[in-house]
């Protein structure tokens, strides 16, 4: 293969730290998903292995404090909101306390934010002493709909496979699946499967790399929890592997749908899906790294394609893809060390050590693995 550039670790870390310190007004559309953006930034630092070394204890504590402040309680149960974007500042502190004790109908927790909050807190090695586990289960159950899918916020009609994965991931983290109706959710996943061998975002939708990951990870989380296998027949599994592998373009990057251009984020979504299916040895990881190497922005951060602007989402998912698919470089290659990352757990989408922390600290102590 042609020589790989360095993975500019310091540049990518700096990009994420910059975003954590503040976003310009042009990013106002992040308002309703700020916590997810925080996760992509903190997660990138975790994948680069520098959270403890390069973020002061004091700063980590402030981050934790802000994350916990997004945990809110109310009539639909407990979860995390994206940010206080719908929370009003009150004049007296007494009034403030009252408002904070219960969320209003338009300031509810959000299921995707709840998943990203738990992972972010685990990265910061929180002890989860203040996690309202019972409230969380109630929240999941309120979000589940008749058809087995989950809404983003209680009562919303915005629902698709993304939210179902979050419900499964949270149940797995809690090691308690009593908040979800699993058979109904699995039948929803099955209705999203398409003739191409991938999964669409909702029933009848076109197969897409991101939702295919989501579907496969959800099925695997459930089969790990219940010791049941065979959610896919061998020939279905074969079709899915074939479709996913065909998505690797000659540039080395993966596309999300048949015939589309490669995009850095699909290197993760398709790559992680293949890993879940046990097909990771079939991916050309050198070509993948060379594509992601070209997606690096010269002032830090990774973008969706070469020459585009970087963002934390593509930075995190590119690093996560590289953690699963490190390029095979000879030790004499000067750049080899820059590409080395710790192993990633493809199911929860976190560094393996972070997953271990989750397994040890999020389940109810008596209910968790000892």
């Amino acid at each position, binding site marked *: 293969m042609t020589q790989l550039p360095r993975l500019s670790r310091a540049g990518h870390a700096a990009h994420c730290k910059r*975003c*954590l*310190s*503040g*976003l*310009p*007004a042009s990013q*106002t*559309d*992040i308002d*309703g*998903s*700020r916590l997810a*953006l*925080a996760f992509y930034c903190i997660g990138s630092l975790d994948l680069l292995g520098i959270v403890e070394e390069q973020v002061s204890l004091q700063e980590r504590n*402030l*981050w934790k*404090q*802000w*994350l916990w*402040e997004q945990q809110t309680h109310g009539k639909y149960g407990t979860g995390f909101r994206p940010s*206080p*974007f719908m929370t*009003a500042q*009150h004049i007296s502190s007494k009034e*403030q306390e009252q408002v904070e004790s219960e969320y209003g109908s*338009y300031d509810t927790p959000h299921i995707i934010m709840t998943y990203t909050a738990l992972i972010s807190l685990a990265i910061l090695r929180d002890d989860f002493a203040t996690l309202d586990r019972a409230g969380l289960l109630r929240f999941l159950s309120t979000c589940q709909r008749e058809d087995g899918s989950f809404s*983003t*916020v209680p009562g*919303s*009609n*915005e629902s698709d496979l993304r939210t179902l994965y979050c419900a499964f991931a949270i149940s797995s983290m809690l090691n308690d699946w009593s908040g979800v109706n699993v058979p109904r959710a699995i039948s929803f996943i099955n209705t999203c499967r*398409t*003739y*191409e061998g991938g999964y*669409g*975002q*909702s*029933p*009848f*939708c*076109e*197969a897409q790399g991101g939702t295919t990951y989501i579907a496969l990870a959800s099925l695997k989380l459930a089969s790990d929890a219940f010791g049941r296998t065979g959610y896919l027949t*061998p*020939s279905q599994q*074969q079709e899915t592997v*074939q*479709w996913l*592998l*065909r998505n690797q*373009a*000659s540039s*080395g990057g993966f596309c999300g*749908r*048949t*015939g*589309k251009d490669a995009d850095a984020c699909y290197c993760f979504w398709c790559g992680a899906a293949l890993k879940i299916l046990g097909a990771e*040895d*079939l991916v*050309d990881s050198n070509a993948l790294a060379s594509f992601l190497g070209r997606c690096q922005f010269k002032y830090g951060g990774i973008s969706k394609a070469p020459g585009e602007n970087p963002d934390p989402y593509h930075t995190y998912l590119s690093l996560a893809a590289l953690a699963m698919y490190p390029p095979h470089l000879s030790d004499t290659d000067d750049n080899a060390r820059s590409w080395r990352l710790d192993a990633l757990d493809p199911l929860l989408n976190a560094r393996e050590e972070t997953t271990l922390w989750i397994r040890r600290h999020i389940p109810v102590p008596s209910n968790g693995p000892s």
Partner: protein
Amino acid sequence: MPSKAAADTPLFAEREEWADVQPLEQYEGVNPIAPIFYSPEYKDATGYFRAIVQAGEKSARVLELTENIIRQNPAHYSAWCYRYETLLALLPPPAEDADAGAQPDIPPLLAAELALMDELAVTFLKTYQVWHHRRLLVPLARQPRRELAFIQRGLAVDAKNYHTWSYRQWLLAACYGRGAAADPAMPDAVLDEAAGVWAGELDFVDAALAQDVRNNSAWHHRFFVVYGARGQADSEAERARIFRRELIYTKQNIAIAPSNPSAWNYLRGVLRETNTPFAAVQDFARLYAYPHSADETRDVVDLDNPAPGADAELPCVQAMEFLADAWETEAGAEMWKSLANEHDTIRRQYWEHRIRDAHQTIKPAVE
């Protein structure tokens, strides 16, 4: 991206008609992570919005306020949600004695909302919330044909937009699918047009593929129309007719552009859906799986197996893969070797894996 249009209008704080509302600033307790440096216009509008929500006001001016916020941040799901509820509160209730099956008149307020959504959906094509709001309006307006026309305009702007296609599929399934006939609120007029609508969808796909034969969203839509939404036809003769039609349609499109993965995936899909072995179309695939040969004869036109053009790039990787899957495992090995070493080297590890596994677990894709 927030729209700049908001800067041209006065702040809510400067408007007489909002003087009765005390705006509520956003709460930022501890040191915020990734704070957004909001524009003054966004701070202003959201301050009034928090106050309105707290007061529970659902009046006409709330529509103006939420539109202003949405134009600055189309992903503000609370603004969308509150807007919808306000709309419901302001719309006249359906007449008591109206025939449930009749096509309702569209009240002016709803007509205005639909017009606004037509504009915003194109401006914010990639925002989830825009499309979810639209779905909520469908049962109120009950005019799915109008929506189909709108989607067509949207796809002209971006022919592969995922949200736009998903919306079309959802709309068709909800209004003309199996469940719709059982829905007492569905106007008879809508149910009566179902057959025509489904037939029209095939023309719609044809037009999209005539523009770009590699548009996978259009191929997917065809599968949805033919097999996905309503299942297979009841009579065997009809099923056979549809199968033949789909097969020849796909083959003809492969003849136009042989290395089109979407068409080959569609072919695989039709064969699997109908439990037809891949080997049934091997004569066709063979025409594409080898280099052009000197003795190619074009005098016999085989309508069932349209041949590639003289300038087609052969062999075509998709045809090779298809044949290898169709054949008994060992015969496929030569094909896989050729893919691994020459024609599809990025998947070398995969093809080598297929060769290794040929004697073991993996059988051809259709059993």
